[in-house]
């Protein structure tokens, strides 16, 4: 009746996960109770859960990503403290638990923290920058989000019911085959990642179509803000490689569930093929994460230097170059597998060539500051910290791309330091910068500067104190994924790394405090102009927060920097462009289909994990029924009357007029 599921699935014998999950469950129940008590459900349902507004979906993605970032961070704290305690000692986490932690940390950070945050910002910003009202497929967008949330939920359920994978964030067979991992951990991994992966794939399709086919009049390709280019490149990569992930995980599932022999070490199966296929996805994946971050930095360097981006054309070329070459380098993750000199040479060289595209970007950002008026606001601090950190991480990446050098440090702490160096220094810094930068557009008030700066400095210092020791440990021969350490000499560096985590914790606390303080003092941080940073692209042409239809009248872009041009013209003539003729706007209606799909995806996933076949069948049937019902829907759009549009836009215009006046006075003063 319940497949493999029984009461003994709950880890009553393991206090740490048990207590964690009980606290977690109580928190969730508390939040749900609060929502019920306050009667917020109808509001949440109407305005958020069923919303197809790209801004709302973007915000929900970011929320999900932030929560998962904290979960991943908790895992990281456990790992670093375990390793510091377990030098010639067992530490406090037995292997079967520790191994779950690094697997969950990697999985959560990549799939459920970094990806949602990146996609969240993509969602929030892209249509605004392109001057349109939504993405190409708004309902699909909601489905994507909810599928991602479903995957995240499954991963966290594994804490309380059963276990998570103990095989690393990429479960190499044969270790992940049923023989060597008989528990449900790998199944949790497979279904969680599979479900969210489908969501991500649909996001990719959505954004390729959005950027290519949904731009406001005059927004030719070479007038798009740099961020949109990176979104396009990342989405193309998603479309190209996420199917590989789907296929590979499907093959592993067939092995585990039905005794197929894709990757087994019996009957001719070939585990090396898993490694090959998974990296054909895995390497492009890291550029899916980092390219949008590059886009964010491009916006920030230009805005906070008060200048156009230097070498825009080179930037576009470099982005597309990285996008294509990223698909030709995957073997560098298994140079030491024995494919031979010819293969290693080809992939080593193609890997290092990526440094050219990335290097050009770095120099272009530096020269964007040349002749500028650089303001050291929080987003700019993250960006400068990024250049410093990422350049070093990229350099160690190129070292790993040299096969004989990789023969020494493959799978070592040096590698761990490399990828945290590029991921934290590149992606996470970029996300924090982007959140700070676009926060006012989303909520109408800025984030507190002081706490933001404190968070930055603690994160930067904490990062280096944590990971610089790992570089050295890697060179001393320390390999990754060690539950305990048998070499006494490594103690000082492991301790130092733990100190670094302590500093990171302070940074994370600052970040949270910043959020709380900003909310409490939102009135003094209010952005009435809609253009808090003296921005240059179209999102700043809307009020903060942007109305749900984004633009009352679709902008008509006439120059390279869409909004800067409009702004200059207004300042020059000391008046806004004449009031347009307002027309009714058609917007997509809200839809519960995303939530519905994800609900049944979760149920089906859970049933498959525990092999409760009837429930899985039921879930699939319900999904099909839902598809039919949804396909039958007749109303897809609703009209916003012209008067409503006019009302919103006139408010915006009066704010702009005030701004203009002030600018005019300032201009006269200088």
């Amino acid at each position, binding site marked *: 009746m319940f497949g493999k599921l029984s009461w003994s699935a709950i880890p009553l014998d393991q206090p740490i996960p048990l207590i964690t999950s009980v606290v977690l469950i109580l928190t969730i129940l508390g939040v749900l109770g609060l929502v019920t008590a306050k009667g917020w459900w109808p509001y949440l349902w109407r305005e958020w859960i069923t919303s197809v507004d790209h801004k709302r979906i973007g915000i929900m993605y970011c929320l999900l990503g932030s929560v998962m970032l904290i979960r991943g961070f908790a895992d990281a704290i456990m790992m670093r403290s375990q390793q510091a305690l377990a030098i010639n000692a067992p530490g406090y986490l037995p292997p079967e638990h520790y191994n779950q932690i690094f697997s969950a940390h990697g999985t959560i950070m990549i799939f459920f923290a970094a990806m949602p945050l990146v996609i969240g910002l993509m969602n929030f910003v892209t249509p605004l920058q392109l001057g349109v009202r939504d993405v190409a497929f708004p309902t699909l967008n909601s489905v994507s989000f909810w599928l991602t949330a479903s995957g995240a939920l499954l991963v966290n359920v594994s804490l309380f019911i059963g276990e998570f994978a103990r095989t690393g964030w990429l479960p190499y067979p044969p270790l992940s085959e049923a023989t060597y991992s008989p528990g449900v951990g790998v199944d949790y991994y497979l279904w969680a990642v599979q479900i969210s992966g489908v969501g991500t794939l649909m996001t990719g399709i959505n954004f390729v179509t959005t950027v290519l086919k949904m731009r406001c009049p005059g927004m030719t390709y070479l007038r798009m803000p740099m961020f949109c280019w990176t979104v396009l490149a990342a989405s193309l990569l998603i479309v190209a490689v996420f199917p590989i992930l789907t296929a590979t995980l499907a093959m592993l599932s067939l092995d585990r569930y039905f005794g197929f022999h894709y990757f087994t070490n019996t009957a001719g199966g070939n585990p090396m093929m898993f490694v090959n296929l998974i990296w054909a996805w895995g390497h492009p994946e890291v550029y899916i994460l980092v390219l949008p971050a590059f886009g964010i930095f491009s916006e920030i360097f230009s805005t906070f230097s008060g200048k156009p981006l230097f070498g825009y054309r080179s930037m576009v070329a470099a982005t597309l170059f990285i996008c294509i070459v990223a698909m030709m380098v995957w073997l560098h993750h298994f140079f030491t597998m024995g494919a031979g000199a010819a293969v290693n040479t080809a992939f080593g060289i193609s890997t290092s060539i990526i440094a050219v595209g990335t290097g050009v970007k770095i120099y272009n950002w530096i020269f964007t500051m040349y002749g500028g008026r650089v303001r050291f606001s929080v987003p700019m601090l993250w960006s400068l910290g990024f250049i410093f950190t990422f350049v070093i991480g990229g350099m160690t990446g190129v070292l790993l791309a040299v096969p004989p050098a990789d023969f020494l440090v493959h799978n070592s702490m040096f590698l761990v330091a490399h990828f945290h160096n590029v991921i934290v220094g590149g992606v996470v810094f970029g996300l924090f910068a982007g959140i700070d930068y676009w926060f006012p557009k989303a909520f109408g008030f800025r984030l507190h500067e002081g706490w933001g700066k404190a968070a930055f400095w603690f994160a930067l210092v904490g990062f280096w104190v944590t990971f610089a020791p790992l570089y050295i440990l890697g060179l001393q021969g320390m390999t990754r994924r060690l539950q305990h350490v048998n070499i006494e000499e490594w103690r000082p560096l492991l301790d130092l790394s733990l100190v670094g985590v302590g500093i990171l914790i302070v940074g994370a606390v600052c970040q949270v405090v910043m959020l709380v303080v900003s909310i409490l003092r939102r009135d003094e941080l209010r952005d009435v102009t809609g253009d808090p940073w003296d921005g240059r692209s179209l999102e700043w042409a809307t009020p903060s927060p942007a109305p749900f239809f984004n633009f009352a009248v679709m902008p008509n872009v006439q120059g390279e920097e869409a909004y800067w041009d409009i702004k200059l013209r207004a300042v020059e003539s000391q008046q806004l462009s004449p009031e347009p003729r307002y027309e009714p706007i058609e917007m997509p209606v809200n839809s519960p289909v995303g939530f519905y799909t994800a609900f049944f995806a979760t149920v089906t996933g859970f049933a498959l994990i525990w092999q409760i076949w009837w429930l899985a069948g039921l879930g699939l049937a319900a999904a099909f029924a839902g598809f039919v019902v949804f396909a039958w829907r007749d109303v897809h759009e609703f009209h916003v009357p012209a008067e409503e549009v006019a009302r919103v836009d006139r408010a915006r215009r009066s704010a702009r007029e005030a701004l203009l006046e002030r600018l005019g006075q*300032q201009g006269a003063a200088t």
Partner: protein
Amino acid sequence: MSDLGLPAAVETLRRVREDPHRLGHRGHGPDSPVEGAGHGATGPARKRIVVGYGFWIFLLSDIVMFACFFAAFAVLRGATAGGPTPRDVVELPRVGLETAALLLSSYTCGLSFAATNARSLLWTQVFLLVTGLLGLAFVGLELQEFISLAARGITPQRSAFLTGFFGLVGLHGLHVTVAGMWLATMMAQVQVKGFRREIVHRLICFNLFWHALDIVWIGIFTIVYLMGVTP
């Protein structure tokens, strides 16, 4: 607004207008694109184009997934673990029938599209129905093949080669089955709702999907079946 004033110079404006990135933008020539073309100069593309294009991108991603299964098949082809070889598995006459069914269904699918364009409800439905029946015949033949193979002990659990074989062919069969379910839903919708805009869009997408599955089948019958019996 920040503490920094704007460079409110006429000169600045002139330079911004005059192509700051040296992109060499010219206005579009006499054939400047029409509204809704989605070229960028004229605003978002029409829904029809957006839907079709999005589905096209989805198809490409689906093809990539098939490519992985093809690659796996190619790699595992020789790993028969002492069991049946490709030669033991292939029955050319049946493959011929399957191919014929799918090819004809592609043809009738194309005809249904012609009927849709001519707004003929009857003929659209007739051709869709024939398409579905041919698809059903295909799936039936394949199922029969799998069952008869299993009766001879030829199952994916036997060896990696058979895993690759059943995985690839089965994935395609599954796609055809799902497409068949979609087709049934589409026919009901066409009947009830007629040729509304979104229905026509979906018909276009369905057409694309069906033809794409046929293209994948070309790969399968060539690489898996025909090349399985070539020396």
